[in-house]
C-alpha cells in the first residue's frame, strides 16, 4: 500500500506559503474546522472515535475515547503536548515549524468537540523557532476571526496560547505537564483522577500530542472511513510519522501508513550509513526495548511492535550498526533517565541512579558476572512501582540489553574493557 500512499500530515513540507493562513487555506485548510463547527460536539467525538486514531505521543491511547471521558465541569481545557523530549524524536518539531495551522486547526476541532474555550500548547523551552512560528500563526488566525471570540463566525469562543516549558523530560508526561503549566515543579500526579476529570487548574482537560491533533482536520474533511482504510488493521489506523536517526544515510522524518515494515523505512532513509551492517534498532524512542537486526521485517505499528517485545512509542527509530557498543549506548540512555527522574518516587529516583552506575562500570571494564542479575533485579524493583511511566521507560533498554544481548555484556566483563574503539565518554559528570 505504501507505494501509492500520498503524504497527509507532511503534505505541506516544502511549501513555505503554508506558514501563512492564506497559504494554508489554499489546500483546504480550516475546512475541517468549518465542518466540525456545523456538527454537534458529540458527533465530532464520535467521528474521531470511529477513525481509530490512537495517540501519537507514545502511549497509543485511542484519542476519541479520551475525548469522550471529559468531565462535566467547566471551564474545560485542551493542553497540546508539544514537549517532544523523547530521545530520537523530532517529528512534532517538523509539524510545528512547517505547518503550524494544521496543528491549530486540530486543536480547535478538539476544543469544539470537548467544549473547551482555552487551549494551551505546551512546547518544550528549547523549541524557540517553533514557538515563534506558532505564536505568529495564532495571531494571524485571531486577526482573521478563525480563532478568538467568535471562531469562524460560529459564536464559539476559543483562546489559544503557546506556553513554553523550561527543560524537563518529565513534563511530557501528561500530569507532569499539567503541574508545570500551573507553574510548579513538573512532578506527575497520582491517577485517578485522570486529567479528563481533574486536569489543568483542577478542571476537565484533554491532553493530546501534536501529531495526534494534526490528524484530526483530515479525519473531519475526509472521514473516519478513509482514515481507517490506511494502516495495518482496525487497531492500527491512519498515517504515521517515523523519525529515523543514527546510522542511516538520510536521517529524517518520513510519513507512511502506520505499520510500514522497518525494512522499507530503512530503505527510504537511504539504507545503512556508509554501507554498514545493521546490528540493532530502537523502534520507539529511548524508552523502547532494543530489537536485534533479525526483526528487520517488523511491521511498525502499535500491536506488532508490542508483540515483538518492544513498543512503537513515539515512533522514533534509532538505528545502530555493528560498530556500535550496546553497553555504551544503553549507559547513555540510563544516564538520561537518571537525570530526568523527577525524584518523587524512590524506586525510580534510586533505581535509575544505580542502573547508570552499573552500566558505566560495565562499559569501563570493571563489571562482574553478577551485574546482569543485579540490573534485572533493579528493573524488577522499578517496574510498576512508580507513579508515572518514567520508571517503566527507564528499564526498557536495560532489560533488553541484559536479556537480548548478554554475550556482548559478558565480553566487557571477561576482557575487562570495551571491545569497541571510541572516544572519551561524555556521559559522566555533573549536568
Amino acid at each position, binding site marked *: 500500500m505504501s507505494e501509492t500512499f500520498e503524504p497527509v500530515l507532511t503534505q505541506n513540507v516544502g511549501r513555505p506559503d503554508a506558514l501563512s493562513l492564506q497559504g494554508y487555506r489554499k489546500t483546504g485548510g480550516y475546512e475541517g474546522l468549518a465542518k466540525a463547527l456545523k456538527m454537534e460536539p458529540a458527533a465530532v467525538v464520535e467521528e474521531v472515535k470511529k477513525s481509530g486514531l490512537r495517540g501519537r505521543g507514545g502511549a497509543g491511547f485511542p484519542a476519541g475515547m479520551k475525548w469522550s471521558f471529559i468531565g462535566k465541569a467547566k471551564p474545560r481545557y485542551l493542553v497540546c503536548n508539544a514537549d517532544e523530549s523523547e*530521545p*530520537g524524536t523530532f517529528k512534532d518539531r517538523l509539524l510545528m515549524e512547517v505547518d503550524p495551522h494544521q496543528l491549530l486547526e486540530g486543536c480547535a476541532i478538539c476544543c469544539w468537540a470537548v467544549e473547551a474555550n482555552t487551549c494551551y500548547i505546551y512546547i518544550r*523551552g528549547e523549541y524557540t*523557532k517553533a514557538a515563534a512560528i506558532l505564536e505568529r500563526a495564532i495571531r494571524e488566525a485571531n486577526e482573521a476571526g478563525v480563532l478568538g471570540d467568535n471562531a469562524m463566525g460560529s459564536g464559539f469562543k476559543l483562546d489559544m496560547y503557546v506556553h513554553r516549558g523550561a527543560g524537563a523530560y518529565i513534563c511530557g508526561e501528561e500530569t507532569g505537564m499539567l503541574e508545570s503549566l500551573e507553574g510548579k515543579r513538573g512532578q506527575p500526579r497520582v491517577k485517578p483522577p485522570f486529567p479528563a476529570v481533574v486536569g489543568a487548574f483542577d478542571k476537565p482537560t484533554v491532553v493530546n500530542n501534536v501529531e495526534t491533533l494534526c490528524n484530526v482536520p483530515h479525519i473531519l474533511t475526509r472521514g473516519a472511513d478513509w482514515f481507517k482504510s490506511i494502516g495495518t488493521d482496525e487497531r492500527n489506523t491512519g498515517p504515521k510519522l517515523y523519525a529515523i536517526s543514527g546510522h542511516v544515510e538520510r536521517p529524517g*522524518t518520513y510519513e507512511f501508513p502506520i505499520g510500514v515494515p522497518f525494512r522499507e523505512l530503512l530503505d527510504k532513509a537511504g539504507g545503512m550509513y556508509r554501507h554498514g551492517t545493521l546490528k540493532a534498532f530502537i523502534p520507539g524512542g529511548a524508552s523502547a526495548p532494543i530489537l536485534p537486526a533479525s526483526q528487520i521485517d517488523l511491521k511498525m505499528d502499535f500491536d506488532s511492535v508490542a508483540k515483538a517485545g518492544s513498543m512503537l512509542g513515539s515512533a522514533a527509530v*534509532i538505528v545502530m550498526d555493528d560498530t556500535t557498543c550496546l553497553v555504551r549506548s544503553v549507559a547513555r*540512555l540510563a544516564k538520561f533517565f537518571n537525570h530526568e527522574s523527577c525524584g518523587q518516587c524512590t524506586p525510580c529516583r534510586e533505581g535509575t541512579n544505580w542502573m547508570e552506575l552499573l552500566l558505566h562500570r560495565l562499559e569501563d571494564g570493571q563489571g562482574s558476572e553478577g551485574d546482569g542479575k543485579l540490573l534485572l533485579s533493579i528493573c524488577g524493583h522499578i517496574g510498576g512501582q512508580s507513579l508515572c511511566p518514567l520508571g517503566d521507560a527507564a528499564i526498557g533498554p536495560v532489560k533488553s540489553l541484559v536479556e537480548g544481548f548478554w554475550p556482548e555484556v559478558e565480553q566487557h566483563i571477561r576482557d575487562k574493557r570495551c571491545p569497541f574503539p571510541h572516544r572519551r565518554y561524555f556521559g559522566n559528570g555533573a549536568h
Partner: protein
Amino acid sequence: MSVSEPQVTAAGLPPDARAELDRIRKRYPTNEAALLPALSIAQRVWGGWLPDEAIAAVAAELDLPASTVYGVVTFYDLFHQKPVGRHRIRVCTNLPCQLRGCEEIMETLHQELKVEEDEVTPDGRCSFIHFECLGSCDTAPMMMVGDDYHENLTPERTRQIVRGLK
C-alpha cells in the same frame, strides 16, 4: 528560613519586563501559572541566569514564597543559578548524537574555548555544556548557541561558529 533561601532585595523587574509579564498573566486563571514565563523573562533581564535577587523579584511580582520559586528554578534545566557565557552553548549528547560523533564536538569546544564544561571563558563570552536530546537527531551532531540550532556539525564547522561569536 533555610540557609539556601534567597534574600529579598529592593531590585524588582524593570518596567518593560513587568509590562510583558502582565500581558502573559492574563492567559491563566492563576498567578502561579505565569511563573515559568516570569522566570524566563527574569533570566533574560539578569543576563542569562537567576541570581537570588532575580528569584526574589519574581516571587514578589507573583506574590509567591521565594522558596516556592527557588524550588521551581532548581527543577528545570533551562534556568541557571550561576553565571553563564554571553553565548550559552548546549551540545546534544544523547544516543542519536552519540552515534554520529557528538564527542568530537565536545572536544572541539573544549580545545577552542580552553575552559572546562560549564565554566565561563575569562572574557565572559562563552560557556558550553552537554545536554539531553534537543530534538534534532536527523541533523546530528548538533548544538544550540543561545536559541539557534547549528546542525550537521563537524569539528571544523564548530570551530568556525565559535570563532564567529562576539
